[in-house]
Each structure stands twice: as C-alpha cells, then as structure tokens.
C-alpha cells in the first residue's frame, strides 16, 4: 500500500511550520451554482514545491476548487491567494497556473505536436526551443510516434497523455492535474507517477492533483486532503491520514476499515478501553475526546488483524467467527469473516509463501485479533 516515493523528502514539512508562508491559499472560499453549493467555506494552505492530492467522492467539489485557482470560476465568497496576492479579477491567461482538464480539452484541429507547442508559442518562445521542449514532453509521455496525429486519431489513454504533456510543457509555477492518469494502464500509470514526482523535484513545480485512486495519491503526494460535500474533512501526509484518520468517513474513504460500535469506558496509561454491546472489552491507543458512556468506534484495518484457527495467547481484541468469503488477490488474500453476532469483519494476509500447508478455507472457525496499538478509536 505505502510505496512512499516521497519518503526521502521527510524533512519537507512546511505545513508544520507556523511561520511558513503558503504559496496557495484558499480563505473561507465558497462557490455556489444557483442552489448547489459546490465548495463550502473551505480554507486550505498549500506550500511551494508541495505535491498536494485532493481525494473525495464524485461531485464533492474537487474540480470546482481547481477551476477557481486556475481562474475559470469566480469565488462566491472568500478569496484565493497565490504567493500572497489575491487572485480576484486576474484572468486565467495571466495566472502562472496551468491546468490539465478532466475532459482533456485537446484542440481537435491541431496535431499532437501543435497541441503541446500551443502554450509555448503563445509565450513567444523561440522556435528551436519549442521544438526541443515538445520532443522532451513527447518522450516523457511516450508519444513520440504520434506527434503528427490529430486527437481524434488517438485512444483515450493516448489523449490523456497528450493533455498531460501539454499542461506540463509550459512548466508553470503551479500545475493542476484533474485525474491525470485515470485512463492509463497500471504499468504506464505507475511509471508516469514516478515521472511526475521527478519533475516536481527537478523543476520545483507545485502540484495539485485530483485522483480517484488512493494508492496513486499516497504514492505521489506530500499531503492528501479528503473532501466531502464541498468541505475538507482532513488534510495530512499519507501515513498520517491512513494510520490516524480523524473520522470514520476518512478511514473508510482511504482503504478498508472494520468498524465496531462501542462505548467509551476510560483511558488508563495511554490505553483506551471500550465496551461492546455484548459486554466485551476492546483495547486500543490514541487520543479521543470522549467521556465515559459516549458512543465511539473501534476501528482496525484488515491487514492489521491476525487470523488463525487456534485461539491466540494474547487476550486483547479477540473476535471469533466463520470464514464467509475468500478473495485471493495475488500479493495478499482477503477474508470476510462472519462473527457470531452477525457482523462481518475483513482481514487480509500477505502471501509471503507460495504453498501453505492446510490453508484457512471456507466455513473454517477462526479467531481474529489485533494488538491495542494496531487499532484506533474514532469518535466521529
């Protein structure tokens, strides 16, 4: 899950620095379309050279947010700032921001080459430089062989690569990528992800990327923001947002999670005790602002649950049930276990060996368990 390309940049954490000035700032931005509120009182700071990913369900306002930064939509309230300057009234062609459109928006009457060169020509770049830059971009997206084709002679994935190349060509200060890699096959997508990170390292571009692929977000981004109904629910680096989500919504949106409703019993020496409705006790760690008797959720990711046919020695967080479903995914196997109280719990195990003697199979009675620090407690 965590490929963490960006991990060697661990020292890059301007968002923790109170004195750091943000490069892009959304200040209480609201965008309404008639009765629809696409973005709702949203504030966000993005720092120079940051790779920022926006995640959220369809229609939550990701594209709208980008369009306001690129200058295609005016804010209904609040302000958008770039390098400290309010962008209100600045037309798109004067903003040092380039956008890759979700619909690609390639010019149908121009060849791939001309599409990529368009922004450079507009800038007044010398002919030789344009040619050099265009061929570099074509190489980057592996489209050299298609330079002379028109967009309607390309496949969906090829078009997407041209759109990406066109937005990258001008090497702007800020690059907005609206689902840039969605139409690419997995291999090409992964390669391009690495290329993007490289580009950002070398050119110092600030990236804002929208993606529906959380793995992609985790691979490329320094920070991820999860959106819901025009608001940002949580902004954090990939590890934190995955391991320490602040709400069930975020926990559920990024990866799989098992949630068990419980009541808060108390905290002793950093260990949080929860009581289930069946009278069992669950233990976990973490901060939670709750008082005794409050409803909270015990949350644990499938890969952090251990599964076995024998009862584990440690007595914490034990569940017992029957294997209902098995999905073999190659690198791992996912089990869906029906607990005796009717709840389904997911557990996954890495397939570290080729052959396993007597593997767990359908209708086996199994124990699931996890250490207190492998689970978390969510109050929202």
């Amino acid at each position: 899950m965590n490929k963490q390309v960006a991990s060697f940049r661990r020292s890059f954490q301007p968002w923790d620095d109170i004195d750091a000035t943000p490069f892009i700032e959304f200040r209480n931005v609201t965008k309404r379309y008639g009765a629809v509120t696409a973005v709702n009182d949203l504030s966000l700071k993005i720092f120079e050279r940051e790779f920022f990913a926006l995640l959220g369900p369809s229609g939550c306002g990701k594209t709208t947010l980008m369009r306001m930064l690129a200058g295609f939509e005016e804010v209904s309230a609040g302000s958008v700032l770039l390098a400290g300057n309010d962008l209100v009234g600045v037309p798109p062609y004067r903003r040092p921001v380039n956008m890759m459109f979700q619909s690609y928006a390639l010019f149908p009457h121009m060849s791939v080459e001309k599409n990529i060169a368009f922004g450079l020509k507009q800038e007044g770049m010398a002919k030789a430089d344009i040619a050099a830059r265009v061929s570099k971009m074509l190489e980057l997206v592996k489209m050299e062989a298609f330079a002379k084709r028109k967009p309607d002679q390309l496949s969906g994935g090829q078009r997407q690569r041209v759109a990406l190349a066109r937005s990258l060509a001008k090497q702007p200060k800020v690059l907005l990528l609206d689902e840039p890699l969605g139409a690419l096959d997995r291999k090409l997508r992964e390669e391009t992800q690495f290329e993007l990170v490289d580009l950002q390292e070398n050119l110092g571009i600030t990236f804002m990327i929208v993606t529906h692929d959380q793995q992609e977000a985790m691979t490329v981004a320094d920070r991820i923001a999860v959106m819901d109904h025009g608001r940002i629910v949580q902004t954090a680096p990939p590890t934190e947002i995955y391991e320490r989500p602040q709400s069930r919504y975020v926990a559920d949106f990024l990866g799989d999670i098992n949630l068990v409703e419980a009541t808060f019993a108390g905290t002793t020496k950093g260990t949080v005790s929860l009581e289930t409705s069946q009278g069992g006790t669950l233990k976990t760690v973490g901060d939670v602002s709750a008082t005794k008797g409050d409803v909270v959720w015990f949350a644990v990711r499938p890969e952090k649950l251990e599964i076995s046919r024998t009862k584990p020695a440690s007595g914490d967080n034990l569940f017992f049930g029957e294997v209902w479903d098995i999905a073999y995914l190659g690198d791992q196997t996912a089990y869906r276990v029906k607990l005796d109280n009717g709840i389904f719990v997911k557990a996954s195990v890495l397939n570290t060996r080729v052959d396993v003697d007597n593997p767990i199979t359908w209708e086996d009675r199994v124990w699931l368990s996890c250490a207190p620090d492998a689970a978390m407690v969510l109050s929202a």
Partner: protein
Amino acid sequence: MKAVWNGVVSRSVIWLPYLWLLIFFLAPFVMVAKLSLSEPAISIPPYNPVLTLAEGPAGWWADIKRFSLENYVFITQDSLYWRSYLSSVWIAFVSTFLALLIGYPLAYGMARAPRTLRPLLLMLVILPFWTSFLIRVYAWIGILKKEGLLNQFLLWAHVITEPLTILNTTTAVYVGIVYSYLPFMVLPLYANLERQDLTLLEAASDLGCTRTQAFWKITWPLSLPGVLAGCFLVFIPVVGEFVIPSLLGGADTLMIGRTLFDEFFLNRDWPVSSAVAVILLLILVVPIMLFQRSEARSREAAS
C-alpha cells in the same frame, strides 16, 4: 422467401433517393437540355421539333437529327449573356461575403446566449419563413422607395435633406438578397458554433490566450466547416436568383435569372432560355461539388 423479400426492401431503401433524383432532377434536366437543342417556332409549344409518343422511333430519329447547338453559339455571341453570368456570380459573391459578415456575429451571439434563450433566438431566425418570400421582398419596396419608411426616417432624423434613390438600384438588390438569404448563413454557423466545446476556450486561455486570440486560434478554425456550408448555401441559389433583382433591381442590374425569365416569358424563346439554364447549371456544378466534398469531409470528421 422472407430473406429475399427483406433483400428487396433493404435494397429499395438504398435506391429510393436515386429514384427520387431520377424523377425530379434528371428527367427535367434532360427535358431542358433537349429543349436547348431545338429551335424557336411560332406555335404551341413554341419550339421545334416536338418529340411526341405518337411519332414512333423513326419519327424520333428524324427529330433528333434536327437538334443543333445554334442556341449556344448565339449565347456566346451576344454579350448580354456572359455579362449577366459574370454579374450574377459577382453579386452572389459579394452578397455571400456580406451575409457572412452579418451572419457570423449573429450566430455567435445566439450560440453563446443562455441555453434557455437559444430556442427563442433560433425561432426568430426561422420566423420569416412563415410568410411568403414574395411578400417579404415587396415589403422592402415599401421600405426602400423614395417616399418609403427608410427615407422618411432619415429625413425626420435630419441625416439627409433629399430622399435617396435606393429602390431599383443594385444596392437594393444587395439589401434584398442579404436579408432573404441570411438564415441560410446563420443556421449552419449556429449549428457549428453551438456544438463547440467551450472547455477548449478555457484550455486556450489557460495556455496564455486572451479572449480575442482564443477566438482566432480555436473558435474560428473550428467553425470553418460551418462557414463553408453557409457560404455555399447562400452563393449557389443567389447566382440564379431572379425575384429579388426583378422586384428591387434597376434596369442596369444584370442577373442571369432575370435574363432567363425575360427570355422565357417576354421573348418566348424557350430554346435559348433553356440553353441559358443549362450553362447556369454547368457554372454551378463546380461550387456544388466543392460543397458536397466539404460536407462529406466534415461528416467524416464528426464520426
């Protein structure tokens, strides 16, 4: 059995348009072409020879041997005809250009109007078709004549002191043609402009284009198929236009349609007027074929 029947049906669907063309285009054309090879006569009908069914094949052969190209020779000798052709093509060319100049902004405005308003605007463009073309041209007489509405208005506004002579000049013909054929320019342009993807303009603007630059680099080149269609739809019928020059034009407004009309109804020289018509058709074949080619190409691009 059923398969055979289906085959016949599906084939007839293909042949039906050709049948239509055969009956309503090719047959009349052959008749006109035949007429153009005959000679005028004071009789009913006013030409010779008249091929009739009663004559039988031997009679037809005798008639066919009497055909001659004399009418065509006559047309090349009298400068009236080729001056009419030239003048018609020129008037059609200028009118097409004027219609484009007025029609493009009109279509552009319509295509960019709020979506809810567009059907109404489209309706307004089509509305004139609901009254007779002839009546609309007559209305222009009322507007353009010496004591007409236009002169009255200009006199009232003190723009002029003497009424202008507009009616029965070539200017009036231009006014009438551009007015009458404007919808044929606007409709294909509107269809094209309305279909255009506006995010392309956003992309252009994102890549550094002002609105004007984006228009010339994106909107205009993408609208060329519409421009071409509109221009042909105006140019082709205007070359043969006859009502407008005869109602609004002066004695010096030469147009081939009018010459043809005079030849046919005043001189009652059916063979010569048929020859004029055949040559007109030959002149128009070139732009018609160009039009067909461009249409086919844009249809290909769309699919």
